[in-house]
């Protein structure tokens, strides 16, 4: 080998490197194990080193103009910080707080099973007088410590509770599930609503402090070797919601009214208000909900935790007639002038069944416009039979039913549009579905839709047939104000001709304003309001009341769907609510025509 000598030199060099490296390891190890042995032995004994979590405040939630909806508030929690000798402290604290000491002790034991040496949370969110009582007696409670933590607080109580959702702390089973994502035991996590959907923005990153404690668990100060890690607050999110409209809408559901309201900006799909009534108080969940509160909420027959605006599907009733009409026009089965074979005398016989019109006296012979204005069922039964189940189901799906709108909120319901396959499964292969198609044509029978779906369709009609995906997020900013994500507007042209949209809009205008109208209660002075009432028969009780509409007709700023359960006619209950919502929003936007003010009043 040519460079044998070179290889010898290189071997020596590498050997020198090896000796150098290993000497470093050996010296370091000797330093830790021999020189500093006492120090580390002390830290190791009874585990005197503690890692204390500094919780990061959760991000804030604002409406579109910066009105605060949800923020964080400080809360006091009582912690057990020693590993041993804690029984007497816990007993005394239980006495001071008036709590069951057995309960506290069993919670300590169960938490210690997972984290044998970590501090244990005894009581969360102490009342001010409880804090005072503990502080007065802190000398007698050597094992305990009061800590401040950050709890969720909604600014407007239970308003918009379904939209905002709530947070709760991670329990044992959840901790196991989420710890890989960086959660600590007892961290707060969004449950439902946008707290859940935008959890990744809202949650911050916890900080840590490293402290040395004495044998009784008392703080001896921070450890110099491990640097304190500051918490990073969560990001703030801004919603498309206009709080002025939201709070008005919330207030309109009075007197135990059960229902939902959805308001959408047709041009963008921005959700302006999202109401589900009755609502609940998310603040009850902030520090862990008490069992009596929880039982009250889940046993309430009106299901206050359920988001009726996006999670409940109802028969859409007559609000669905625009779908039937659009399908018939697009399939060229009728023209706007076509009149049905049978004019309305209050009912129609199909097979051996009598299908009634809501107006017992009948409407006589109507064209499409008249049929929508008067909401004539007999007209639409015949249209439904022309279209058959297939035509109705196909067009319903094309117009957005039977699937989620894709709003950025969890647990959306897709509703239901029964098609031929569905009926064959249900009724057998050769079942006659002509009666079902008649029922479906007026939004009855098995058809189900969420208030959000109906609002979204009417918003698309208002917008000239361009459907915009409903969404609630305007933007998310980190705590320094850097925009992390902006608004996502996604549009889709519905397969409707301009002519069809124009006919429907004109008819919806008529339904509010023409003689014989059904939706007059939604009229607004000086504004062209379009809309449609609905009275959905409900096999479980009284009819549901619907109103869906938009305004102003020519350049719509808002589309609204209102549903009130078991409230009878849409024209009486739902329409006034929708009218007031639209009026309020137009007022906010300065689109309301001012009534002429007499000159004398000005002085």
């Amino acid at each position, binding site marked *: 080998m040519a460079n044998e000598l070179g290889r010898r030199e290189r*071997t020596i060099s590498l050997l020198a490197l090896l000796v150098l490296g*290993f000497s470093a390891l050996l010296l370091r*190890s000797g330093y*830790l194990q*021999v020189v500093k042995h006492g120090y580390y*032995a002390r830290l190791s004994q009874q585990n005197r080193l503690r890692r204390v979590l500094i919780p990061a405040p959760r991000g804030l939630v604002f409406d579109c103009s910066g009105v605060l909806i949800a923020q964080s508030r400080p809360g006091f929690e009582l912690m057990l910080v020693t590993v041993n000798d804690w029984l007497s402290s816990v007993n005394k604290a239980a006495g001071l707080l008036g709590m069951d000491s057995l309960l506290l002790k069993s919670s300590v034991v169960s938490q210690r099973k997972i984290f044998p040496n970590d501090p244990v949370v005894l009581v969360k969110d102490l009342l001010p007088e409880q804090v005072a009582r503990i502080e007065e007696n802190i000398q007698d409670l050597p094992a305990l410590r009061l800590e401040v933590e950050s709890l969720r607080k909604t600014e407007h109580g239970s308003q918009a509770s379904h939209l905002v959702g709530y947070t709760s702390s991670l329990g044992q089973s959840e901790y196991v599930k989420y710890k890989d994502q960086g959660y600590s035991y007892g961290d707060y996590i969004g449950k439902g609503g946008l707290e859940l959907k935008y959890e990744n923005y809202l949650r911050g*990153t916890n900080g840590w402090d490293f402290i040395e404690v004495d044998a009784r668990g008392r703080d001896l100060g921070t*450890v110099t070797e*491990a640097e304190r890690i500051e918490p990073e607050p969560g990001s703030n999110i801004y919603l498309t919601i206009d709080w002025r409209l939201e709070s008005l809408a919330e207030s309109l559901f009075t007197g135990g009214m059960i229902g939902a309201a959805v308001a959408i900006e047709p041009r963008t799909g921005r959700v302006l208000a999202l109401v589900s009534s009755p609502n609940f108080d998310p603040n009850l969940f902030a520090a862990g909900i008490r069992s009596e509160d929880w039982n009250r909420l889940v046993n309430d027959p009106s299901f206050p935790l359920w988001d009726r605006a996006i999670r409940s599907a109802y028969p859409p009733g007559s609000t669905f007639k625009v779908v039937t009409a659009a399908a018939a026009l697009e399939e060229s089965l009728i023209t706007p002038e076509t009149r049905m074979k049978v004019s309305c005398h209050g009912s129609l016989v199909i097979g051996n069944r009598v299908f009634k019109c809501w107006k017992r006296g009948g409407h006589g012979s109507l064209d499409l416009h008249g049929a929508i204005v008067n909401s004539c069922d007999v007209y639409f039964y015949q249209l439904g039979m022309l279209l058959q189940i297939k035509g109705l189901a196909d067009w319903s799906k094309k117009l957005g039913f039977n699937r989620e709108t894709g709003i950025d909120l969890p647990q959306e319901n897709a509703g239901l549009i029964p098609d031929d396959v569905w009926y064959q499964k249900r009724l057998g292969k050769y079942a006659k579905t002509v009666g079902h198609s008649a029922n479906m044509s007026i939004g009855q029978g098995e058809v189900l839709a969420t208030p959000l779906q109906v609002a979204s369709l009417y918003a698309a009609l208002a917008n000239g047939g361009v459907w915009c995906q409903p969404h609630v997020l305007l933007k998310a900013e980190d705590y320094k104000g850097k925009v992390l994500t902006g608004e996502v507007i996604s549009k889709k042209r519905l397969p409707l001709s301009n002519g069809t949209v124009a006919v429907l809009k004109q008819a919806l205008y008529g339904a509010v304003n023409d003689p014989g109208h059904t939706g007059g209660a939604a009229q607004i002075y000086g504004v062209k309001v379009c809309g449609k009432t609905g009275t959905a028969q409900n096999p479980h009780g009284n009819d549901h009341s619907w109103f869906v509409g938009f305004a102003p007709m020519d350049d719509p700023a808002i589309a609204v769907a209102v549903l009130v359960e078991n409230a009878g006619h849409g024209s009486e209950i739902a329409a006034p609510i929708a009218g007031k919502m639209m009026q309020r929003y137009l007022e906010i936007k300065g689109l309301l025509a001012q009534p002429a003010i007499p000159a004398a009043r000005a002085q």
Partner: protein
Amino acid sequence: MKIKLPGSRDFDLQLLMAVLLLCTIGLISIYSATQIDQPHLSGLWQKQLFSLGLGLLLMAVTIAVPFRYFEAFAWPMYILSIILLVAVLFAPPVMKAHRWINFGFVRFQPSELAKLATIFVLAKTLSAHDFSFDKFWKLLVPVGLVLLPAALVLAEPDLGTSLSFAALFLTMVFWQGLSFGNFFFMVSPVLSMVAVISMPSWIGFMVLMAGAFWFFKVKFKYALPIFLINIFIGSLAPAVWYGLKGYQRKRLLTFVNPDLDPKGAGWHVLQSKIAVGSGGLLGKGFLQGTQKKLSFLPEQHTDFIFSTFAEEFGFIGVMIVLSLFGWLLFRGMIIARQARNRFASFTAIGIIAIIGFHVFLNIGVTLGIMPVTGIPLPFMSYGGTSLITMLVMIGILLNIGLRRYEY
């Protein structure tokens, strides 16, 4: 050709003994580290024992195969491991990193195979008769051969393993005969990047480099570009680094090196130091460690096995383990030095570089003198792929030793 069997004069029994002792110590430590009220861990030592058996079997096979066959397999093996390294990036992540391919019955880390394959192709390239460093650009081929797998491993991401490719490359290039001077100039941009931590140290470094140019009589046309590259990197690095916001820096660091726990920075290392330090001179005794019971690390039986061992067996134990590793590496170097076949010699030194780097980095992390990078301690950490690869490497080393006088 006569077949040489273990027991022959050239078989390095001492090296084998060192390895077997380290494996035994590892097994004992894994057993101790996993007896902590966590049932899913307590049986791991048996799995490790099985891997050890399999590894020893493969090692025996490796010893029997004449090393020139490895040379023939170098390229196919390299290509296969590159394919697997690309494939692993599409495998489902485990703890946020794409390091494992799951074959159902066994999880496999392609980066382990890639280490061996890269050693082989580098050895083949560098040992070629017409290879020399008379022209600097001739380095490009070996650089490329290492950069490809190293970059793929970095993308997993796995910084520790990626750096081990750098260690193996530098050692093998040095072994080829790259002069101290050229070697220094080659790594100078990296040194420059480190030196810019403070202005005086960087100026000192540049002066040192100018001195080196003069001392090694480097021609101006080479010196100038090297110098410019250093100034460029030295001025760019801090501009980029300090241009980033605090959280961006943290994100970058955790992206490159996810083992650097952003939430517990310092905590794991501190716990490891407490374990080691509280062990003292004689240790707390087998199964008597207290720190491990805190489960302060998810990796106390893998990457932090050394701290469990040091807690229970003290400084005496540490000295024994370091001596065993030291002896193993020394014997390996002797084999590399004596091997007459150039490919064999390069392979041997590459293996020594990999093992040495792993030992130094892993123990350095547990003692708190190296940044946390997830890298196993050879022969001792829990983990089948690593153990088996290491044993196969030892098999190759013994193989070369056995045939050290063959060309």
